[in-house]
């Protein structure tokens, strides 16, 4: 069984490499019972989305106060 520290490492790594089946199952089980890590995982999605907006120059313009 994963602890939260290990689960968050996998939440991060799944953005950088394909997880193994065993890792995917373990992470899924953990986030089903742990709200904090489920939040963490969603927030990793959000960070990636924000980074993509930035990378594409799609931040709100500076002159639309």
């Amino acid at each position, binding site marked *: 069984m994963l*602890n*939260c*520290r*290990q689960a*968050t*490492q996998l939440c*991060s*790594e799944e*953005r*950088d*490499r394909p997880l193994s089946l065993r890792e995917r199952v373990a992470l899924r089980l953990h986030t089903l019972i742990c*709200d*904090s*890590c489920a*939040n*963490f995982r*969603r*927030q*990793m999605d*959000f*960070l*990636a*989305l*924000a*980074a993509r*907006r*930035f*990378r*594409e*120059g*799609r*931040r*709100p*313009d*500076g*002159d639309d106060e």
Partner: protein
Amino acid sequence: MTSDSPADAKPPSLDWNDPAILALRRDMLKFAHLQLRDEGAAEDAVQEALIAAMRHRDGFAGRSALKTWVFAILRNKIIDHLRKHAREIPASDLARRGDDEGPDIEQLFEQDGHWTTQDKPHTWADPESALSQKQFWAVFDACVNHLPANTARVFMMREFLDLGTEEICQELAITSANCWVMLHRARTALRRCLENNWFGGAPKPC
């Protein structure tokens, strides 16, 4: 020197004083400066990207397309710069823990690996709406700036420049495992910073 193709003779028509171009330039500088942490290098990268964009200006359709496209060019200029200078960063510096690394990730967790009460990630209310708010991005920039330099460098190569971890490892001469640990550290710190400084208002206890 430039080629002698007649296409090059076309006079550039971008108006550098157009407020939209000035705003674009400012956004580009922010993007470049965050990653290069050197004003001169950031100015150079932005200038080169704008010139390249102007030279091939038939390739875009409208203003939003221009922006995305110019940022793609800028991204490549930054990658070029980082490649040229990657060797100047001693690998031992990158791999080193502690020192400038700020609060260690271990401090967020109890001995048994569970979240400490004060560091549990809370639910963020409607995070996507934050992306259209300028103040949010100011907080985002500040949070990225607060990352330890080496952690920030790896994070930005991965997320802003969209490089794969393999390539990052090669450029910086670190192992994949090390790279994943640094990315975890960066994302965790960034998440925490955003929660404390932007999403913290959410009154819901976990």
